[in-house]
C-alpha cells in the first residue's frame, strides 16, 4: 500500500485538478462564455444522474464489450500471424506487399464498408475493432521477432535447440515487450473505431449516446460521456501493463519496463 501511495504522482494530479478548478472559475466568473460549455460541476451532476438511471453503465458496457472482444481476437490473430510472417520466409515474400497496402489505408474508411457488410450490429463494431487493432499487433510482433539479438540465436544453435524451441524460448520472449507495445496501440485504436462505428453506424453505446446528447443540446451529458471514455481508456491501458508485468516479469523487467 505504501508502495502505491509513493508511486502516485501527487504533483501531476494537483496540476490536473488545478485545471479543473480554473475551468470552473472561468465559466462561473463569465470570463469565457460559450453557450454549450458547462462547468465541471454540472458535468459531475450529469454523470451522477446518468449513473443513477443506469444509462452510463449500459452504454459503457456495450462499447467496452465491442472494443475488447475485437481487440482480444486481434491480439491473438496478430501475434500468430506476426510470428508466422517472421519465421516463414515464403509467407513473408508473398504477403508483405499486401500487408503494407492494407495497413496504410486509413482505417476509418472501412467503417461504411463494415456497416454495409454487417449492418447496424454489435458484430459490425467488433469487426472494426478487430481490424483496427490487428495491424499494430501484427507489425510489432513481426518487428520483435526479427529484432532478436543475433548472438542469442547462435547460442540456440550451439545448444542444439530445435527450430520450434528457438522460436518459443528465444524469439518470442525477446519479442514480448514489442508485442505489449503493439497491444497498447491496438487497444487505443479499437476504442476509437468502436466509437466511430457507434456514431455513424450502430445506434448504441457511448458513441451513439455522445451524438444523441449533442443533438439534444445536453452538453453536460456529452462531457460526462467523454470523461467516461477517457477514464476507461486509462484504466484499460494501466490494466494491460499490470497484467503483462505479472505474466512476463522477466521479459518486461529486462527490457526496462519494470517498476
Amino acid at each position, binding site marked *: 500500500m505504501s508502495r502505491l501511495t509513493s508511486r502516485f504522482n501527487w504533483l501531476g494530479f494537483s496540476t490536473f485538478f488545478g485545471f479543473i478548478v480554473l475551468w470552473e472559475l472561468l465559466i462561473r466568473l463569465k470570463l469565457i462564455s460559450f453557450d454549450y460549455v458547462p462547468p465541471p460541476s454540472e458535468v459531475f451532476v450529469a454523470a451522477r444522474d446518468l449513473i443513477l438511471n443506469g444509462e452510463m453503465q449500459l452504454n459503457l458496457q456495450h462499447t467496452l464489450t465491442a472494443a475488447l472482444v475485437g481487440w482480444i481476437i486481434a491480439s491473438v490473430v496478430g501475434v500468430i500471424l506476426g510470428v508466422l510472417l517472421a519465421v516463414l520466409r515464403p509467407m513473408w515474400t508473398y504477403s508483405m506487399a499486401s500487408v503494407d497496402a492494407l495497413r496504410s489505408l486509413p482505417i476509418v474508411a472501412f467503417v461504411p464498408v463494415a456497416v454495409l457488410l454487417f449492418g447496424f450490429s454489435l458484430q459490425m463494431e467488433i469487426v472494426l475493432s478487430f481490424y483496427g487493432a490487428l495491424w499494430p499487433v501484427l507489425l510489432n510482433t513481426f518487428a520483435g521477432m526479427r529484432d532478436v539479438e543475433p*548472438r542469442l540465436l*547462435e547460442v540456440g*544453435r*550451439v545448444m542444439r535447440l*530445435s527450430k520450434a524451441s528457438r522460436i518459443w524460448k528465444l524469439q518470442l520472449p525477446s519479442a514480448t515487450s514489442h508485442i505489449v507495445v503493439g497491444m497498447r496501440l491496438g487497444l487505443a485504436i479499437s476504442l476509437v473505431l468502436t466509437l466511430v462505428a457507434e456514431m455513424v453506424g450502430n445506434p448504441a453505446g457511448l458513441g451513439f449516446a455522445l451524438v444523441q446528447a449533442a443533438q439534444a443540446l445536453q452538453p453536460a451529458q456529452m462531457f460526462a460521456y467523454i470523461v467516461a471514455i477517457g477514464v476507461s481508456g486509462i484504466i484499460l491501458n494501466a490494466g494491460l501493463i499490470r497484467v503483462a508485468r505479472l505474466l512476463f516479469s*522477466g521479459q518486461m523487467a529486462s527490457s526496462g519496463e519494470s517498476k
Partner: protein
Amino acid sequence: MNEDMSIDQSPHDGGDSGSISLECDDLKVTLVGAAGPVDILRDVNFSVAKGEFVSILGASGSGKTTLLRVLGGLQAAAGGKVRCNGVRVSGPPAGVVTVFQDYANSLLPWRNIRRNVGLGIEASMSKDDCYSRVDEALALVNLQDRWNEYPWRLSGGMQQRVQIARALAMKPSILLMDEPFGALDAMTRASLQDELQHVQGLTGTTIVFVTHDVEEAVYLSDRVLVLQKTPAAVGLELATALPRPRDQMSTKESPDYLRLRHKVYEALGHRVGH
C-alpha cells in the same frame, strides 16, 4: 580416424591417451566483405588431443574468432576438413559448446540463472534431473547461491561464470572459448583463469581458447598456436610443459614461463626496444 594420422605432429603433455579431439586439415575460410570474398584463413593444419588446453593467439583481425566459429560449426569452411571426435563438422556438433565473449548478449535476460544454465539440457531430462545438473554446474563456478538472480543483476565476471556453467551443464567433451575473459578487469580475469584450470582438472574437458592476451595463453595452455600472415595460418606452435597446477605468482615468475612468453611475443612481431 584411421587415415591422416600423420598430421598429428605436435608433442603435447596434456593428451595422455593420444586420441584426437579436434583436427583441421588444410582448412580454408573465405568471408564475403564489402570488397567481395576475402580469404581469412588458408592452409590451417593442427589437431587438439583429448583433454588438452590449446590457446589460439594472433593479432587483432587475424581470424582467431573465425577459426573458432568454424570449429564450432557456426561458420562454414571454404575448403579442407574439420573433424570433431572423428566426425566431419557441419553445423554445431554434439558435445561441443562455444562460450562467447559478450556474456551480456549470450544470456537470456528474462530467465533467472538456474533457467539460463538449464537452457541446453531442459528438453532432454526431467525438471529434477535438470536442476540437479544445473546446481552441479553452478557449484563448479562458485555461483550456487545466486541461482534465483537475473543475469543483469550480476557483475560481468559472474555473468561470464553463468555462461561457462551453462556450457558445463551440457557435459561437453570440447569447450570452445572466444576471448571469454576479454571484457573483464584484471583481477576478475585472474580468478576466472584459475577457476577454469580447476574445472578442467575436474572434468577433463578439451578446451580451445582464443585470446589476444599472451600471458593468459601461456599461463593456461598446454600448447599455444600463433596465427600469422594474411590469410592466416598457424605460424608458431609451442608446447608449454609448465607444471600443473599453476598459480598466478610462482608460475608467472618461473624462467620457463618468461622464456615462453618471450617467444610468443616474438612470433606476434614484437621486437625488443619497440
